Structure formats: structure tokens, C-alpha cells
């Protein structure tokens, strides 16, 4: 899943993009997403992906993790591109570049912004319960991840997983999931009681200091405007 690695990059990074506030980065990612979705030619999309790669490079994001995560959008774009290739090569490449470009944009946000900050920002617009579910899911994911990986490791070591024995895999998978679910539900009840003791009454308090625009925010906003302008100018020229 690579969520842990992405989170580590987001929390430990010191680049200009890591220091920028959530609203400015969200604005940039929305601009990038819009330009990727709206562009209709391979050259513009290629240029946008080049810009995204440079942004990743400047943010010192580990390409190994990003490349793993990009495999999904690339592979599934390729499946749809195969249909489009019957029309023309350009149509096929458009599908691949759009899928990969959009994924690169969202990954850039996650690799430079801790998850909690993203949802703290969204809490201003989404129902508190939903934001709490997102935050608890994030926390639960990391708690369970170690547990599941050690369970799966012990299952493999004891011969409980075989690539060609689906029936055995299913049975063992069911036991593993059952055990993990049981343990996680018990843990969730404990966690809820602890939160109640700490004063939780439906809404995890989050600090918002987004009105302060620093130098990194200005750079990010200017970049967003430039990206959109570049896209609009390209439209006019064509």
C-alpha cells in the first residue's frame, strides 16, 4: 500500500512544498488536476507531466515509492488505451498520460502534506463525523499494518500461503481476516474509551493557521497561476 512510506515522506520532508500550507497546495493540485483533465493533446500533457516530475524532484520525493504507486494508474490506463489505440496513437497516449498525470498530482499532495493536515483542512467543509472516520481510519491503518504484516509473515513461514493453491489461500485468508477484525474491533472499543477519557465528544480538535501566507505559499500560488495560464495560452494558440 506504501501509505506508511508516503506518510514518512510527508512528515519528515523539509522542502519548500512541505513548508507550504494545505490550502495553497490543494489549490495547486486542483489546478494540476484540472489542466491534466482538460488538456486534449499529447504535447501539453507531456509538458504537464514533466512539470509534475520536476515538482516531485524539488520536493525530494522518493521516486521508488511513487513509481510503485504509479503502476496501478499506468496499467489500468493502458487497458483503456488499447481500445483507443484503434482510433489513433495519440488517443491511446492521451488516456495513459491523463491517468498517470492525475495520479502524479494527487501523489504529490500526499507526499508533501501529512494526511492529518489534509483532513484537518477538509473538516471545515465536510461533516465532523466523516472527518473523524477519516482520521480514525488513518490511525487504525498504521496500528493494524504491523499486526497484519507479522500475521501474514507467520502464515507464509508456516506454509499457509501458496501462489497456486487458491482454496488454501482463501481458508487461511478468512482466518487471518477474522482474527484481525476481531482484534481490531476490540482495540477500537478500547481506543474509543481512551478518547472519551481525553474529552472526545464527536470531533477531533485540529489547529487551523491557514490564513497566514508565508513565502512557500506565495511560491506555490504563483506556480498554480502559471500552470493554469500556461494551459489557457496553449488553448489560445491552438
Amino acid at each position: 500500500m506504501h501509505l506508511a512510506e508516503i506518510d514518512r515522506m510527508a512528515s519528515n520532508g523539509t522542502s519548500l512544498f512541505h513548508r507550504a500550507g494545505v490550502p495553497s497546495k490543494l489549490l495547486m493540485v486542483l489546478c494540476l488536476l484540472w489542466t491534466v483533465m482538460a488538456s486534449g493533446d499529447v504535447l501539453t500533457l507531456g509538458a504537464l507531466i514533466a512539470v509534475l516530475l520536476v515538482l516531485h524532484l524539488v520536493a525530494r520525493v522518493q521516486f521508488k515509492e511513487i513509481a510503485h504507486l504509479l503502476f496501478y494508474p499506468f496499467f489500468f490506463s493502458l487497458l483503456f488505451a488499447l481500445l483507443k489505440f484503434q482510433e489513433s496513437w495519440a488517443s491511446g497516449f492521451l488516456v495513459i498520460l491523463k491517468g498517470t498525470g492525475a495520479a502524479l498530482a494527487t501523489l504529490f499532495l500526499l507526499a508533501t502534506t501529512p494526511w492529518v493536515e489534509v483532513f484537518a483542512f477538509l473538516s471545515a467543509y465536510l461533516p465532523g463525523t466523516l472527518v473523524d472516520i477519516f482520521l480514525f481510519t488513518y490511525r487504525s491503518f498504521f496500528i493494524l499494518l504491523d499486526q497484519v504484516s507479522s500475521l501474514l509473515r507467520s502464515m507464509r513461514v508456516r506454509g499457509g500461503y501458496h501462489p497456486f493453491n487458491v482454496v488454501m489461500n482463501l481458508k487461511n485468508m478468512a482466518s487471518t481476516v477474522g482474527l484481525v477484525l476481531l482484534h481490531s474491533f476490540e482495540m477500537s472499543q478500547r481506543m474509543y474509551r481512551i478518547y472519551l477519557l481525553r474529552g472526545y465528544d464527536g470531533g477531533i480538535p485540529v489547529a487551523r493557521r491557514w490564513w497566514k501566507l508565508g513565502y512557500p505559499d506565495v511560491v506555490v500560488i504563483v506556480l498554480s497561476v502559471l500552470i493554469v495560464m500556461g494551459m489557457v495560452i496553449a488553448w489560445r494558440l491552438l
Partner: protein
Amino acid sequence: MSHVHLPDGVVPTIWWVAGYLISLVTVFVILKRVEAEKVRGKIPEIAMMAAVMLITMSVPLGFIPFHMNFAALAGMLVGPGLGFVVVFVVNFILALLGHGGITVVGLNTLSVGVEALVGGVAFRLLKGKIGSVPSTIISTTVAVLLSTALMVLFLSSIGMVDIRSGEGMLHRDNHAGDGASGQDEGLRHEDAAYRFGRMALAGWAAVLVVLCLGIISESAVTALVIRFFMKVRPDMINPTPNKDW
């Protein structure tokens, strides 16, 4: 099981905007309907279910190109409505990580959320009559079939699949638009049928095999998990009666 791995830029804007609107409205309505006090107590449980779904979705089942969803299981364990909310949360997180486009989150939530809604409701209706394990198998199978049907309908609506023939829409459109003479038309038709026969037959056959294996595995694992719960914590499957969504 029926998670649509569509990348961004493939689905027409009107579709993904409608998908987002419908799924968000559904999530808001569900969260409004449940009592704040009750849902607050269930948040850690919902989050754990979402985390388990996120983790299991990344575990492949050997050589089958398939991963579990456990959306029906979520509907059974946390309730059909809250199961739908779990599906939304999972799809959103997955999309941020590139597993399905960010614009397709709404449509994915609707398609997979149906599994949670139908699976949860059917399980609640059946478990008292035929027992937990058989009702799990039936509920999960029905839920996955409905969800897959919804996905195929959607894909056919945007021109990715032709339900009647299995032929790719784009392939057919190319022939329809070229206005050739009768003889040429006949030759092209023959050519298309041959190409369709070779390509789409293999494609549909493969899809059906994966679909059957997927439904069987999802139902079997969900039933095994429910059986496990019935042995160790039956109170989680048969909680004290409440009107939770």
C-alpha cells in the same frame, strides 16, 4: 470485487460529477439518519473496518487477478448504511494513492457501496431464517452480482463495453462512420466479426471466469469470517436489536 480501476480522464465529466453528487448526498443522508451518539461510539469500529478493507485490498489471491473488497462484510458487521460510508472512505484513500482515479471515487462508491447496502440488508433479513453462514453466502453473492451488473451497465453507458455483443464500442463506431459501399461493408463486417470473435470471445470468457472465481472467493471468505465470528464473538453478528442504518 467490482472496484472500477478507471483512471482519470476516461469517464465523461457529467458521469463522474453525478457519481460524486449521488454518493456524497447518500453519505450525508446516512450520517444524518443515525443518531449522533450512536455513530460516535461506532466511529472507531467503522474506521477499523475501513483500515482492514484497505489492507486486504492490497493482498492478492495468488494467480487470480483479483483482490477482496469485503464491502458486503462491512455492511454485515457495521450495518448497511455505515458500510456504505466505509466504502466511500476506502475509495477516497485508495484514489489519493492512485488506485483508481480521484474523479471516479463517486462512481466507485456507488458501485461498491451497493455491495455493502445489499449485503448488509439481505444478511439482516435472512440470518434469522436460514442461519448466519448460508445467509452470508446468499447475501454476498447477490450483492456482488448486483454491484458487478451496475459496473457493467456503467461501463457500457460510457462506451467501454457493448453488453449485447461484448464488442468494444469504439471498434463498432469506426465501422459505422465510414459510409462504405455494400460489398466493402460486407467484407468489413466479416472482418469485424472475425476480429470480434477472436478478441471479444476470449475477453468475455476471461471476464466470466474471473467474475465467477471472484464471487465464489468473496462469498466463501466472507462466510468463513462470519463463521469464525459466530464461534468466538456471536454478539458481534447478533447484537442487541437497534435501528442503526
